[in-house]
């Protein structure tokens, strides 16, 4: 890690002023620091200044709106999401998604905003290798150690988005509220997280001088239920091998009137299985239909040398998540 200046911001306005005053990239916001510091220690980032937004109280809240929607301040911690009783009752998929994220120690530091913006865990990315995502020419993982990589090709990079929260948020059709030099804007989480491109070697479309203030979750259809399942190769403190967020609503005849199905651990960003959703909508859920949907969700998968197991694993989680969500 290299030396840096540290400034504590009292408000988002102050944080933005400092952020925008500095030359591009020289300053970085720090919230819980649980991802940023690991990147700095690994010499992947060396910002000249950190602007600490963790103490900004106004970024830390869970607010239920009259229309049954919900707004979560970007500085809210995963631990707070995990223990909020109302959330557990009205949007159980959210506490479920953070339940096995990281560790208790990390969850009390880790914020929602930082969680969405965390960088991939790809070994080559984190190690001293100039791979494509870091501006190099080659993706080393494709021909190398790619057990944890994605099975859907979205860019030259094969890394997966590590967040457990993001698939659940996308399943809830959430958006982020952003403040920047040109004022405020709102962006669906599914647009905030986008596969990297040749010109933008990162998974987020947020500009360097922007700040996420909140996550907004719209009102969900009546009777909607969500389930988040995560497969790990250790019973705690492991990123998802694959995860599945299923959110669905049924009418009085058990016919599905609303379905969103999002997978984690399979692509650069959470992967919405739209083919499977289309197959499910308008039908009652049976185990056979769940199996067909799981099959449909895997259409187009192109596993690499060491991650073929993710296909049956994802299929299984999709079926279990759908059946569990339908049962609730």
């Amino acid at each position, binding site marked *: 890690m290299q030396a840096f200046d540290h400034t504590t911001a009292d408000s988002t306005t102050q944080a933005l002023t400092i952020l925008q005053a500095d030359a591009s990239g020289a300053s970085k916001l720090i919230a819980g620091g649980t991802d940023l510091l690991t990147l700095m220690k690994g010499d992947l980032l060396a910002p000249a200044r950190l602007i600490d937004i963790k103490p900004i109280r106004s970024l830390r809240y869970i607010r239920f709106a009259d229309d049954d929607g919900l707004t979560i301040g970007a500085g809210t911690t995963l631990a707070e999401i995990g223990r909020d009783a109302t959330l557990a009752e009205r949007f159980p998929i959210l506490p479920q998604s953070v339940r096995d994220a990281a560790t208790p120690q990390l969850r009390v530091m880790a914020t929602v905003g930082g969680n969405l913006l965390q960088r991939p865990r790809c070994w080559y990315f984190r190690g*001293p*290798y100039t791979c494509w995502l870091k501006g190099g020419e080659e993706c080393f993982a494709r021909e190398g*150690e790619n057990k944890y990589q994605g099975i859907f090709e979205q860019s030259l990079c094969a890394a997966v988005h590590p967040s457990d929260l993001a698939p659940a948020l996308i399943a809830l059709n959430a958006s982020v509220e952003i403040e920047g030099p040109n004022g405020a804007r709102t962006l669906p989480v599914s647009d905030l997280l986008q596969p990297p491109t040749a010109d933008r070697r990162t998974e987020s479309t947020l500009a360097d001088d922007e700040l996420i203030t909140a996550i907004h979750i719209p009102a969900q259809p009546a009777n909607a239920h969500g389930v988040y399942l995560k*497969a790990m190769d*250790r*019973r705690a*403190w492991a990123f998802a091998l694959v995860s599945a967020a299923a959110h669905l609503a049924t009418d009085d005849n058990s016919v599905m009137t609303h379905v969103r199905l999002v997978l984690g651990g399979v692509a650069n960003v959470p992967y919405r299985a739209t083919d499977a959703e289309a197959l499910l909508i308008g039908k009652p859920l049976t185990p056979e239909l769940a199996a067909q949907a799981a099959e449909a969700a895997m259409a187009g998968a192109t596993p690499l040398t060491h991650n*073929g197991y993710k296909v049956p*694993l994802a299929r299984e989680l999709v079926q279990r998540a759908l059946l569990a969500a339908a049962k609730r």
Partner: protein
Amino acid sequence: MPIRIVTTRLEFEGQVYEQRVVLEGDEPPVWDAAADLHVVGKPTPRVDGRERVTGAAQYTADVHLPGMLIGVMLRSPHPHARIVSIDASEAERVPGVRAILHRFNTGDLKGTSAGRPIFAEEALYQGAEVAFVLAETREQAEDALRLIRVEYELLPFVVDPEAAVAPDAPRVNTEQERNTISDEWPKTYERGDVEKALAEADVTVEVTFETPTALHNAMETHGGVASWDGRTLTIWSSTQDVFGVRTQVANALGLQQNQVHVIKHYMGGGFGAKFGAHNSGILAAYSAYTIGRPVRYMLDRTEENLAAGNRPMSRQTYRLGARRDGTLTAIDLRTLGNIGALGGWFSSVGLPAKELYQCENVRSVDVPARTNLGTQASFRAPGVVEGIAGLEVAMDELARALKMDSLELRRKNHAPRYQLIDQPYAVKTLLEAYTEGAERIGWATRDDEQRRYPLGRDGHLRRGVGMASQLWGGDGGPPAQAIAKLLPDGSAVILTGTQDIGTGTRTVLAQIAAEELGLPLDAVRVELGETEFGVFSPPSGGSMTLASVGPAVRMAAVEARKEMIEIVSHLAEAPIDALDVRDGAIINRETGKEMGSVGSFLQQLEGHEITARGMRGPNADGVIVRTFGAQFAEVEVDIGTGDVRVVRIVAVHDCGRIVNPLTFSSQMEGGIIQGLGLALMEQRFVDERLGAVMNPNFGDYKVPTIRDIPEIEIITFNHPNERANTLGSLGAGEPPIIPTPGAIANAVAHALGRPVRRLPLTPDYILNLLNGGE
């Protein structure tokens, strides 16, 4: 006292050595089964538990000396490269930097790998030492590190062990023609005629089983803090062998041994990787000596995982032959192992094949591969953990081929005598361990429908039960010395030079001394982990600390007590035979009356301290002393996700007399948990094109968490092994890890109804198996 010099056989980490040792005096008779003991055998909390849990215990990294410099290392990013030039001029100008050491300014400063300079011309693996920066702060040192310019000439490399021993492989070290230990390798052990026996066998099976490279990941990394005062060099070293460090440091710096003082009071784990100072300790000592300022150099987690040892992978290919009735007639084994860049020995993967089962025709071929990866190190029962897993998986496969119960097959082939040379075992309770473990795990019902399919046949869960046997040494041996000092107030200090590497050595030695001195436990203080005040003790490893040092402490205490009783006899004018000492009080045996405390007698004398020496005697001749045991595992496999959960482990181990049931069960649990890690998740990943380790950190190299740990049931027989040593105790450090991976592998195979071929049994492997892959 007259001395004797004897040659005695010592087994250490699965290898047998003959050593010449000096003995003095006579040991007391063994504590047999009838011995009336009051402190030994009682559950005794650790005497240093308070220091450890409050943070008062000082580990090596906690040592902070005035004016201390911090060292950090620039390590080779390449698996094989010649270091052509180093430009440290810019780095030297960073404020706070005091020195930068590398191959062009350290002469031939030797490290701990035989004869090799620490800063060699050729970096043989990713993580090899290139340049060492010493600065006032860690931050300054790291800033300087980034400014060192190194010109590397990249050389061809090989990291795959099979490729390394192929004829056209690149040379791992351009100075060596072949990628192995020496021209004597591969080595073959053979008894009988294996090919003939296989040809004549009714049933044969062939099994290839692979175990991963595992990283020790002790909580405390390697390293040292050193200080030179112009006369003596003091080094706090994270080591399992303070006397070994003394020799290494004295040799490296050209000092006399009386100028080197080594300290290791508390240890944050070693697991076999810390027999010596490690290059990090030598460098701390060298720089403190040459610069004249104290120096601390502790490896960070990445360095620890690249350059401080590993349990090497093994690829074991078995061919077993048997008669229809299950009698084993042939065992053939080829073991490929990866010794890393500088390995000089081959771990005992073949030992179980040679010894565990009665078999006349056995061949074991050891193929060590040298590769451009970090060097192996002993790791808790090196080789034997892997060998048991491979052999026991193969035995289960043979049982399936014979349609025989696998435990029955093991019983049938039980080896009553040691077969490498024909000798009896002092004690062998393996059959009892089978019976006890089978009973507790419910072996007889392991195929019951409800047990195998907890959610029914259509459900996604499968349960399985499997087992594996354990054999290991653990009887220790000489040389080991101790001194017992009885102070005027009746309190005692026991001096040894052993280390407590976290196993509870301090506590059990205090129990032994208290037992013989007749003092309460809190009147005995045990000093260890120092060369200066201690007396010679062997390295703490090979499950031999208690079995080596314990008897020496016992003898010293017996001798001190003799003198104490003699003194009391003079002062009280009572015959020696009439006197006893219990719980700090002198007792008249005839009347049963207390005559006063030990201190009340000793204080009548002018400043007399009783000092007595004890020595571990020779090992018994003509008999093999071993620990035996078995573990039984019940697992639950989710066939949809490939998730393996260990539900329960029943561990039955015979380690002779148990001095302290609490420290014993700590050893058992720790070993089983570490074995579970190897079975289910631990695995070093290497990118073969880059020659680089991909997961040298705690996040990506996965060790078990509390949630992964099953219910563990521990059973031991607690009978003294009277041929082992005067305690009748055997080491318990390594036995518990030995059968765990094999038992889990067999349980998973049972659950799935198909064999497994490797460790770790991660979800990807299980899913591939279930989807028709290998």
